[in-house]
């Protein structure tokens, strides 16, 4: 009995919460370095465990134990296998999905809060406001994340789906509608239709905001929605007067915002411009040049590529989404080993937004046991293309497009790119001459230094590997 009293002492529970968010912060700071990251994540997970235990000790808990267990069991049954089995290439959509359910939970909590207080009767106004804020943002995050998942999983077309000029008006109207429902509730209306209307309008807003965004911008969107879910969790924390939720949610909200900004900067785009959407929709001229000059591409064979690389001193590999789609990372690793055995210096140049998520390439290559000190970030890599004999571009496009440097009217003008055209020669592995995700033509392919090796990235790399073995 004494033990129970002690365990349920509000101050003891508060201390547990403090330990928990201390561990979150410590763990997160570990996540910022490759050497400490695994432990950092585990420390944060321990923090989460402590926060859950502390919550279960709360004296006001006393009913519905069975239902709590049912919910946790369902969540575990769904979450664990999903996390265990997802392929590394599908990581971005998995994160989108996990983020979405978090936002969904926030929205559902707010809805039930409304129901059990009879429309926030006898509730402090600030609690109502924070709870409604959480409801709107949570619902936007849930639906937006699901759309992002659908696009990355290619259930929904990756290209922008827009209402054209009306888009912005529709978005603003939806937001205004959701806020109006919220204002009516805060003003004293108790009709449940208002909270349902708020959630539905916010849901439509989540759809309307993410559908027009092209697949190339998806990483930034997921990161932004991640920050949103964090903020909504913090708002739920204020409404429920729960410190752990406030701190954890806010840390995610703040760090997610910065991360989003870093990604947007890497693409030289502003977050508002991305959210306004339609980037991928600005399709400019295709294969033939708009300057009237007929452009030709030179194609090469796996054998030629193998010979060229094996006689190089230094080869830089530039991976992109094509490598991820073709699951070519292991094949690339094998080819790299062979080249190194022949005394060729091999490095990987990683553009910050290569793939569908920042660091996406790093994860894939790490999966294939490429040591991370072989992966060069953009600034380091760009300093060294001058002394590189061969750049091998595997399924990357927009991040190598010289138009970003030179052509002022290009939609991607100003985006920092990997200057592969400074190297001695360039080999591009590509499925076809289709333009990249941004739908823009890439003059690199017509450069006289460039040779194209058409085909699926994985089989092309395998062919090169076979040729290397035969040399």
């Amino acid at each position: 009995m004494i033990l129970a009293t002690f365990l349920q002492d509000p101050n003891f529970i508060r201390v547990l919460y403090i330990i928990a968010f201390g561990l979150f912060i410590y763990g997160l700071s570990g996540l910022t370095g490759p050497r400490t990251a695994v432990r950092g994540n585990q420390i944060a997970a321990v923090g989460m465990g402590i926060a859950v235990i502390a919550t279960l000790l709360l004296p006001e808990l006393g009913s519905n134990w069975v239902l709590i267990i049912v919910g946790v069991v369902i969540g575990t049954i769904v979450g664990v296998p999903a996390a265990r089995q997802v392929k590394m290439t599908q990581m971005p959509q998995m994160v989108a999905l996990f983020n979405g359910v978090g936002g969904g939970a926030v929205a559902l909590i707010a809805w039930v809060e409304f129901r059990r207080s009879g429309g926030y009767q006898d509730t402090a106004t600030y609690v109502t406001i924070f709870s409604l804020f959480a409801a709107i943002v949570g619902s936007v995050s849930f639906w937006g994340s699901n759309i992002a998942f659908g696009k990355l999983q290619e259930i929904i077309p990756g290209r922008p789906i827009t209402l054209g000029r009306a888009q912005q008006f529709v978005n603003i109207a939806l937001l205004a509608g959701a806020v109006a429902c919220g204002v009516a509730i805060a003003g004293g209306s108790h009709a449940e239709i208002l909270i349902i209307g708020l959630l539905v309008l916010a849901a439509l807003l989540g759809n309307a905001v993410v559908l027009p965004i092209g697949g190339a911008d998806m990483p930034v969107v997921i990161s932004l929605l991640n920050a949103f879910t964090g903020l909504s969790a913090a708002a739920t924390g204020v409404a429920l007067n729960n410190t752990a939720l406030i701190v954890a949610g806010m840390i995610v909200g703040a760090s997610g915002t910065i991360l989003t900004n870093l990604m947007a900067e890497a693409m030289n785009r502003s977050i508002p411009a991305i959210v306004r959407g339609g980037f991928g929709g600005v399709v400019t001229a295709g294969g033939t040049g708009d300057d009237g000059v007929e452009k030709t591409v030179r194609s090469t064979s796996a054998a030629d590529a193998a010979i060229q690389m094996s006689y190089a001193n230094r080869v830089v590999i530039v991976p992109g989404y094509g490598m991820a789609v073709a699951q070519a990372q292991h094949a690339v690793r094998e080819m790299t080993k062979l080249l190194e055995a022949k005394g060729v210096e091999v490095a990987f140049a990683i553009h910050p937004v290569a793939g569908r998520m920042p660091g996406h390439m790093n994860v894939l290559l790490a999966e294939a046991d490429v040591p991370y000190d072989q992966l060069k970030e953009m600034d380091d890599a760009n300093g060294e293309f001058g002394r590189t004999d061969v750049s091998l571009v595997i399924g990357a496009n927009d991040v190598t497009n010289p138009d970003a440097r030179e052509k002022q009217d290009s939609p991607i003008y100003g985006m920092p790119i990997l200057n592969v055209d400074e190297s001695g020669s360039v080999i591009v592995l590509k499925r076809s001459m289709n333009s990249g995700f941004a739908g823009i033509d890439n003059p690199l392919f017509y450069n006289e230094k460039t040779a194209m090796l058409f085909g699926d990235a994985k089989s092309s790399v395998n062919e090169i590997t076979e040729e290397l073995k035969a040399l």
Partner: protein
Amino acid sequence: MLVTNLAILVLAGFVGYAVISKVPNTLHTPLMSGTNAIHGIVVLGAIIVLGSGVGGWLSKLLLVIAVAFGTINVVGGFLVTDRMLGMFKAKREEPKQEAGE
């Protein structure tokens, strides 16, 4: 209570800012996934509201879904991050067996 919570809110915001402002690109995906797991803490909110008593089958159903959602967010998020980070290796040792696909 509101003022204390607001103070915590603001301070936590700055902590989040300070912790993240220097991260190598290499770790952006795991970091996003890790912070994603942390906001799964909303599961606590769902547990508190459910455990402190709600009536009506609809409210209960909504909360069970919320608890399940939150659990997926937490458990899945940490596991996925762990899997990703486990693949980062500093030096080339003898290649381990490759993860099943």
